[in-house]
């Protein structure tokens, strides 16, 4: 069974680039733009990993991660957060909320790919 990632990102061209990148790396990518439905989408998809934007329409990435972590079956799910807000306190808040890794925009494709592979490997071992 292939590796499955859910991508919640409202920037369509970032979504397209990440989709291309991860598809080539053997991932199946489910992309969504709406923060309000993100928790349900993730729960239904039960992915191996989530890539989550911080600033989303409907609900912020922080609210989404908090809701996810409150669910018993979502506590170990690796979540990579992408954000244009790179201040230390944003990072601290994200980590406190339960984000597994935090990456600031603009990021390189190689960084995203490495992070996704690392997080998946760690989750598989754990």
């Amino acid at each position, binding site marked *: 069974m292939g590796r499955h990632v859910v991508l919640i990102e409202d*920037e369509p*061209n*970032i979504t*397209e*680039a*990440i989709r*291309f*990148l991860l598809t*080539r790396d053997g991932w199946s990518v489910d992309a969504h733009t709406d923060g309000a439905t993100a928790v349900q989408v993730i729960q239904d998809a039960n992915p191996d990993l989530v890539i989550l934007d911080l*600033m989303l329409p409907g609900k912020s990435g922080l609210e989404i991660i908090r809701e996810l972590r409150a669910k018993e079956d979502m506590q170990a799910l690796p979540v990579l957060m*992408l954000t*244009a*807000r790179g201040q230390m306190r944003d990072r601290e808040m994200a980590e406190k909320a339960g984000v597994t890794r935090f990456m*600031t*925009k*603009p*990021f*390189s*494709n*190689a960084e*995203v790919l490495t992070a996704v592979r690392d997080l998946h490997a760690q989750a598989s071992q754990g």
Partner: protein
Amino acid sequence: MARDTLTGSRIRERRLILGLRQAELAREAGISASYLNLIEHNRRRIGGKLLVDIAGVLGVEPSMLSEGAEAALISTLREAAADSGVPVAELDRVDEFAGRFPGWAEVLAAGHRRIATLERTVETLSDRLTHDPNLAASVHEVLSTAAAIRSTASILAETGELEAEWLDRFHKNLNEDSLRLAESSRELVNFLDEGGTGEDRRGMPQEEAEAFFQENAFHFPALEDGTAQPEDLLQDASMLVSDAARSLARAALEQYQADARALPLKELEKQLAGNGMAPAVLARHFSCTMPQVLRRLAALPEDVLGQEAGLVICDASGTLLFRKPVTGFAMPRFGASCPLWPLYTALVHPHVPVRRNVVQHGRNAAAFDCMAVSWPQEMPDFGHDPMYRAVMLILPGGKEVSDAQPVGASCRICPRQGCPARREPSILKEEF
């Protein structure tokens, strides 16, 4: 008092720093305690051998006592030591340092002052970056577009053979994103490039519209004499870049035109010359509303009105929609201002004219005569809650500052402590 007449004060200060009693120093210097007391209170001049002896006991150069160092310089050096967070063992010798090396001491003090200024600037900018939703949105837009471009370009550069469909799609995305980046960067630069005075700050539609009004000194002769329509004036307004700004400026010009028709300039000049600035008299004479009178007065040139006048208009949420600045009265950028302004008193008492003498905190505080009133934005109708707006005319030269009602500009830059109207903490720690 001349510096050399303060020798006694410096002796006393130095003695107290060292924790010496007057009697001890007197004994060491070979004089009586009562005589030292007179010296320390600058009631006896001191020089020669006695000065050298006392300086010796106090462990300083005699010139340090006779010439001293500027109090402000010493005070700044002490602040620098305190702010450094590092324990300074020689703090009690700060006056000696300033006295022996005045040039270096001044360099250190100037450095400290500069650090304080820069820290304040950083704090203000950081505050602005964090709390200004427009700026945050602009920065987010730039970074998100840059991220999309970087990812797409990297795919195009690093992936070997790409299917034609992907290739076309990525080229299209790159083109779209580069256009977006150019536009969002330009908006961001416009926003940040305030040119120091604030007069040229644009980026927000309201600021573009305000720049347009400022360029025309808030007065439009072509609308006064009916030789032009609002749309004609907008045609030549190069500073109105965005459609939103043009729309705001159009609405404000249409209101200006309606007010000018209700209170024609020549008759208004005559009335002002005859009755002075009496808004109620003007409203009765022209059979118009009080908000029209206040807006109209603010739109008159200074030589017609006889004085400078500012104006603010807010909607029912309290958000400022229009500002005509006036010297000495700080107004926040479009957004929330001080809830103590009479503008807001008028907002909660629809149609009731409110007149208050107010003073803003800060240096050079001056009193302003403020007249405010609110009016329903639309014709009242059954089944619809009325939406009110309020206007406030701000005239410099209110009555005594001591009798004036204290107000601020906005909470974040207001140092007033214990204010019942405070909505958020101030970024200022002291009076500015």
